[in-house]
Structure formats: C-alpha cells, structure tokens
C-alpha cells in the first residue's frame, strides 16, 4: 500500500473516531459512566504510551510515572487557578505566592517541562550506571516528591496537604482525546524517526548499539526526559479531569496501574497501550461494578458472596489470567493499523480460497 493511501486511511479513521465521540456526546446522557471511562482512558493511554516509550522501545525500566504526573498536575493547577480564587484555595497560606494565571495549553506544557527537568536531574547520575538502578531511583523519587509536596513549609506554593481546586477543567470528552491524541502522535513520530531507531537498537543490544556509535547515556537520557515530559502532560490532564488534586492521590499504586496497562496492551505496542488503557479503566471502574452489589439475585438465589469490594477480587483474577496466558499482552509488539488489518484479511481470504480449491479437486 502506498504511503499516501495509508495516511488518508489514518486521517479518515481519526475523523471517524472524533465524529463518533461527538455523536455520543449529543445522544448519551452526560452522567453516563461511558464518558468517565473515555476521558480517564484517554489520559491513561497517554501516560501508558509514554511509559511504553521507555519500557517497550528503549528497554529502560522507570517506576516514576506517578511522581511525574504529580509534578505535571501541580504545575498545571498552580499556574491556572484564577487569582481571585487563590485567597479561598490557599486559605491557610494567605493566598499563596503565585498570583497570576496563564492559559491552559501553556500550563499543560509547563507541567510537562517541570516533569522533564526533574527527569533530567534524576537521569544525570542514574543513567550512567549499567544496571537497572533507574527503577529504584524513580520509585524513590515518586515517594519523596509526594511527601515533599505535602510539606507545610512549601504550602504557599503547593497548599501543603490541602486540596488544590478551582482551576480550569474540561467538560467535553473531546478535550482529553485531542490533547492525548496530539501527544501520542508526537511519540509515534519520534519512534519512527532515526532517534526511535536508535532507542530500539539500545533495547535490542546495548553493546552493539554503542559500537554503532550510539551514545548510550545521551539517548537514554533523551528517552527518559521525553517520556517524563508526556507523563507530566497527562498529569495536567488528570488534574483537569478530577477537578481537584492532592499529592496523596499520586501513590505508587498509580504507577503499577499504568505498568499493568502497558503489559496488558503489549510491551512495545503503542496501539496496545491505548487499547489496554480503555479496557483497564472500563473493567476496573465500570463493567465490573455490578459485582459490588450485595443484593443481587439469580432467580430466587441470593448471591451472598457479592459485596462491596468483590469487584476488585474478580478484577485481580482477570489481570492474573491475562498476565499468565497472554504473556506478550493483547498486541505483543505488533501495531494495529489499516495495513495490518488488510494483510490479515487477505491472508484469511487466500486461505479460504486454497481450501476451497483443494476441496473441489
């Protein structure tokens, strides 16, 4: 298939997706869980893809996603709360020290930049080491940053352990889709560039990559900083989605959720991470909700084991099953694309034909 045809197909697909979202928004009542899943799913898709850039494409293992999202979320919130609301938000800190607000897109980017700067500083010493110190260092960083942001002394900036609120949020489901879509698009462009090839070379064989002239420290640092930048942006989006934020939200459990999404979707597959994200959010927050209902009957039979929290048990079992039986995740390291579907269908078709041919003889 020609390159141009592929591009046209992709543009059509994306347009169709947005049209579908638009129609859904016009027809389905806005309180529906569907929108909640779509919004959160888009945000998690972005952070999962950014994690995949590291884990799946560069072969580095970072566990700092929650920390970088926290930085993005706080930067966004601090920079966008309208000055007139600051007195009430920062009521224990005399209205805080920041007394201005910047436009939402700029604040999102600023969140990414702050996360990227921290990643740069962590990476400087850690990425020079050969082994997997990055996982430990980033996990530690995420824990520390959460504590630091709740520290009273920083209250004028972070509002201590109190909520940040009153910053601009989004209503439409299109908003997170557009922002996450642009960011994921950029990551895809990066992965398919000469730098992306260098990342994959490092993942496949560090020693050979270095012998081919790829500077390991520089490229690892680059991947780590870029990944953290997008984690920061997704943190900003998460703040918008949640409407209020607090440092204690960004626990390491959040990082593990994202890691699960990456593993379920397939390490090294962008479309896998996106798919995994929506499935994960839908399962954990929506589709299994009925299991929490303790008054469920089949006919006259009372399902006594159903009670609040049972959903989580079933959910964990599903995750275990996926990890055990789909070692490589739903997509492996393949990508969903028009081209792949076409090839798949053609193969099926051909098989059918030859089988028929064989039968007629």
């Amino acid at each position: 298939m020609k390159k141009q045809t592929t591009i046209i197909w992709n543009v059509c697909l994306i347009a169709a997706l947005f049209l579908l979202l638009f129609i859904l928004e016009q027809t389905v009542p806005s309180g529906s869980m569907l929108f909640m899943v779509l919004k959160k799913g888009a945000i998690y898709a972005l952070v999962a893809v950014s994690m995949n850039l590291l884990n799946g494409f560069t072969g580095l293992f970072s566990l700092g996603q929650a920390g970088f999202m926290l930085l993005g979320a706080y930067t966004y919130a601090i920079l966008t709360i309208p000055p007139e609301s600051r007195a009430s938000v920062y009521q224990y800190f005399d209205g805080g020290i920041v007394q201005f607000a910047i436009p939402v897109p700029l604040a999102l980017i600023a969140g990414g930049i702050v996360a990227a700067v921290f990643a740069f500083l962590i990476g400087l010493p850690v990425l020079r080491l050969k082994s997997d110190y990055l996982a430990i260092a980033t996990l530690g960083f995420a824990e520390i940053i959460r504590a630091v942001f709740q520290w009273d002394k920083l209250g004028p900036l972070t509002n201590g352990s109190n909520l940040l609120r009153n910053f601009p949020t989004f209503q439409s489901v299109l908003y997170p889709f557009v922002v996450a879509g642009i960011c994921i698009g950029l990551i895809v462009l990066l992965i398919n560039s000469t730098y992306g090839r260098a990342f994959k070379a490092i993942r496949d064989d560090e020693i050979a990559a270095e012998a081919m002239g790829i500077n390991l420290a520089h490229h690892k640092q680059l991947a780590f900083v870029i990944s953290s930048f997008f984690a920061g942006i997704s943190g900003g989006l998460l703040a918008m989605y949640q409407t209020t934020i607090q440092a204690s939200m960004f626990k390491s459990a959040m990082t593990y959720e994202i890691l699960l999404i990456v593993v379920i979707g397939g390490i090294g597959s962008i479309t896998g991470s996106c798919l995994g994200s929506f499935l994960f959010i839908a399962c954990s927050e929506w589709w299994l909700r009925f299991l929490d209902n303790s008054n469920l009957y089949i006919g006259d039979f009372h399902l006594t084991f159903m009670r609040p929290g049972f959903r989580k048990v079933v959910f964990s079992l599903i995750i275990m099953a996926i990890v055990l039986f789909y070692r490589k995740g739903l997509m492996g390291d393949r990508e969903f694309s028009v081209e792949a579907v076409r090839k798949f269908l053609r193969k099926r078709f051909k098989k059918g034909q030859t089988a028929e041919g064989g039968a007629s003889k």
Partner: protein
Amino acid sequence: MSKENVLKVENVTMQFGGVIAVDNLNLEVNKGEIISLIGPNGAGKTTAFNVITGVYAPTNGAVYYKGNKIIQNHPQGKMKKLYRGENPVTYTGHRALAPTPDKITAMGIARTFQNIRLFKSQTVFENILIAKHLRRTSNVFTATFRLNAREEARMRQEAEELLEIVGLTDVRDELATALPYGKQRHLEIARALATQPELLLLDEPAAGMNPQETLELTQFIGRIRDEFGLTIFMIEHHMDLVMEISDRIYVLDFGKSIAEGNPEEIRSNPRVIEAYLGGAQDE
C-alpha cells in the same frame, strides 16, 4: 613506500582482578593493510579488540589512532597493588583517557563481534539504517517533525547501497536473526561499514563458515578494503583465510605477543608452531 600509521597499541595490559588477559601488547596497523591477530582460545584477542574499541579501559598502556593518542591509562586504586603486568611505571602521572565505544566509532573505528550481535527485532535493512544514525546532523526535534527529510532519504539510500554491496537486497525485509549464519556475518560487516569507518576490526568473521563460504568471505574482505579504502585488523582462526589475505600477522599467546611477521615468517616460526599451530592440530 611510506607507511601511514592508522592504529598503534602501546604497552597495553588488561588485567581482570588477578587474571592478565592482555600483557604488554604492542602492535601497529598501517593504512590499507590487512593485519591478522591469531592465537589459541583465551589468548586475549577479543580483549585486545575490546580495549581498542573502548569497551574496557586498559589497566595500563596507550592506544593511538592516526597518530593521536585516544586511550591511555595506568594502574589506579585497587589495581595499584594487584597489578602484575610487565610495564609498571610508564604511564603513571599521565591523565587517563577512556572514551566510550561510541566515541571510538565516531572517530572511524568500526567493529564486528565474535558472537554475532545484530539488532534482533529489526529487519536486515533497519540494522544497517540504525548505524547511519551516527553521522546525522538532525537533532531530536528536527527528526521528530520530519524536517530532516533529505537526510533521512540519504540515510536510506546509502543503506540500500550497502545492502547491494553485501548482496543482501533480496532479504532486505527479513528479520536479521532469521538469516543463515554466514549472511548474518556479512550483515554485521555491512552494518559496521555504514558507520563510515577507516579502520575495520573483524572478530572471527569466518567463524562457523564452511570452506566455500570462507573463500567467498576472503574475496569479500579484499574487495571492501579496496572499494572503501579501508584498513582491516582481524581476529581469525581459519588459517587458509589468514595466510591468504594478511599483509602481516601478530600471534598472541597467554596475553603476550609471541611473534609478528608476514605469513611466510609466521608459518615457519617455531614458537608459533609450538604455541598455536601445534595446538590447533591436536584439536
């Protein structure tokens, strides 16, 4: 003929803990030559390559490339007490020089590996294309936003040409690791050539090849030397290959250089026969 020196290894010792893998090695490679490094298993040949390409910083000694000192070290820290090499004091007081392998490759020294190291999830073509990353002028922004389209096209063009030269065009889109052994070795050489080296280090390029393939490889190495104006330094066990194409041969045994000379001299050198050829016949 005036000889232009390309590589000079000076008093290099590489000691791992108590094991001396390379002991006071001295050798020179001149422009346009094909030089072989031979010796029994465990003699320290690969270790010598690893020192030259920056994988290990030598415990002691220096390496020059085209007359410039690129690597230098002397026993430091714990090694001061442990050091048992032959040349203890020469480099003390000098600043250590230890560039990473990518810097060495950027200078113009490329290599292949004894145990083939291709990028296993990549196709044959992509393996070569990755090596083109080194001579880029784009940065991460221009590359992401496709502002380097011309350079990208040139990289692909040059990678295609290399595929043609090594005769792998027909398997262009196959996974590198799906190729038969001999072709993987050719691909590794093509990938090294893609970094535009002047000096090519080949670590046992004929390992695992049958006599026919070895013969083809011999011709191939001669051809790329002429075509790319290369200097070649290689480790090899296949004596036919070594004797046929080497201008000079160095023989290593237990980390020490025991002989040097042209193929005739080496063939008739009693020390070599004893240490290496004799041993090889027993096998």
